[in-house]
């Protein structure tokens, strides 16, 4: 489905930008080596390395305030790193990384003056697509995202789960090979969050995106990811690396209560508790 979504991005979106080295659809691996960052005297990130291949979801969990959001901003090229190298699709320059990453911030940040449809189509409009075309492109996905009938609704009229789906569609419509998701469901209640996780698992299933998923919800990370990195408290280091053999199973309830999942969850929680010390 996502592959279709990406094919759906208009050529105008890419031609409109017309910068050299614009990303293609082949997929872009993310590689980080020896990354360190501090805010003044405060060291936030220390010696982090990770690799994520196209089609993979790498979950990043850690105590609050350990620099998870900073890590995503560094990868996206929204913030210059102090030291270490980050490459996205083989490119290390911040400007080129920014062109390959779609960043979904923790808050949905839907523009209150635009309809749900126009919010979803924002990336296409920014890339220079005409309004009608952009709306048609984004609107084609409303049915499958459970948003049909809400095209003209303002964000204030949508439920928390719907707002998050519109924000996710807006991220996807950017047509970037790398998705950086920052606590995408943190603001939702437990039931809606579980629904959204199943939904995202289905959406990400066959897809070739490289996904970095930051969350403080261990279960969410273990269910959605191929690999989970447990970060220590500030300055963040990688405290544990957990491989998941069968991620994103269709039946979420069964998956998260299996013996294997429970064992992984226990391991992750222990690593987290140790890392927070």
């Amino acid at each position, binding site marked *: 489905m996502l592959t279709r979504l990406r094919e759906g991005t208009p050529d105008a979106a890419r031609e409109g930008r017309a910068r050299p080295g614009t990303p293609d659809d082949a997929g872009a691996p993310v590689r980080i080596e020896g990354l360190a960052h501090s805010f003044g005297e405060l060291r936030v990130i220390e010696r982090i390395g990770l690799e994520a291949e196209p089609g993979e979801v790498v979950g990043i969990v850690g105590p609050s305030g350990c620099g998870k959001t900073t890590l995503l901003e560094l990868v996206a090229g929204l913030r210059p790193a102090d030291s270490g190298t980050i490459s996205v699709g083989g490119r290390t320059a911040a400007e080129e990384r920014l062109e390959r990453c*779609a*960043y979904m911030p923790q808050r949905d940040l839907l523009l209150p003056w635009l309809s749900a449809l126009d919010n979803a189509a924002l990336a296409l409009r*920014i890339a220079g697509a005409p309004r009608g075309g952009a709306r048609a492109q984004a609107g084609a996905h409303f049915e499958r995202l459970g948003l049909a009938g809400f095209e003209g609704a303002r*964000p204030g009229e949508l439920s928390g789960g719907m707002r998050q789906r519109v924000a996710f569609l807006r991220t996807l419509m950017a047509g970037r090979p790398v998705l950086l998701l920052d606590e995408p469901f943190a603001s939702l209640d437990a039931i809606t969050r579980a629904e959204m996780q199943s939904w995202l698992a289905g959406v990400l299933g066959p897809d070739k995106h490289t996904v970095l998923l930051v969350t403080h919800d261990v279960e969410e990370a273990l269910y959605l990811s191929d690999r989970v990195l447990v970060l220590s408290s500030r300055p963040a280091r990688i405290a544990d690396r957990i491989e998941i053999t069968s991620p994103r199973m269709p039946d979420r309830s069964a998956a998260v209560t299996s013996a294997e999942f429970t064992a992984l969850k226990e391991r992750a929680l222990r690593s987290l508790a140790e890392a927070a010390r």
Partner: protein
Amino acid sequence: MSTARRYLAPVAVILVLLGAWELAARWDWISNALNIEDFLVPAPSDIAKSLWEDRSLLGSNAWVTLKEVVFGFAIAAVAGIGFALLIHLSETARRAVYPLLVASQTIPIVILAPILVVWFGFGLTPKLVIVALICFFPITVNMLDGLRSVDPDLTKMLRSLGAGRLQRLWRAEIPTALPYAFSGARVAITVSVIGAVFAEYVGSSEGLGHLINQAQAQLLTARSFAAVVVLSAMAILLFALVSLIERKVITWDSRELTRS
């Protein structure tokens, strides 16, 4: 019913105040005690009489003042928004222009007005300059505050979607700033009327300020008060008009983003 009840209290207060004023002006013992003379403070009924009898005089002069206010305000709105955008986009422009902007508000209009009359004569131009000068500051400062108040996370999100400087300005900063700009416009339209009257007072052959000036010289106090009533009504209507446009333009809840 509820509408009637909403207006009941303010109307009652105004009627009581007017009644007290009427009595104070009519009853000799009160007016003598308070030193109220006809030529100093006319009774409300005299003002009402003047409003009716001088209606064509008041109307034609109000029309002149209205034109000065509306055009002066329009110039200020365009210039104010332009300056706000310029200062917002360029740190150099900010450093260069901002002190001057503040300084422009400290020049007493009393000093400026006669100079403008000498330069531009008794016509429309010096009034436009003074009205624009008064209106321009609240619009600029409020618009600028609005542009700078844009959510930094929103900026990051737009950058990651590929938005450059002007795209971010157009898609996020200007819509964020609009409610602020309207606040400034409401302040500006209210003071603009005072500006226009003052400009007419200094040198003019028409307009409500000119009418007040003349009426006072002839001790036609009721007429000058009637002109003030027309002036207040004009200010209230213009204020309501700006508020109406604001409601038509800003159809969203401007606190929405901070809640998400």
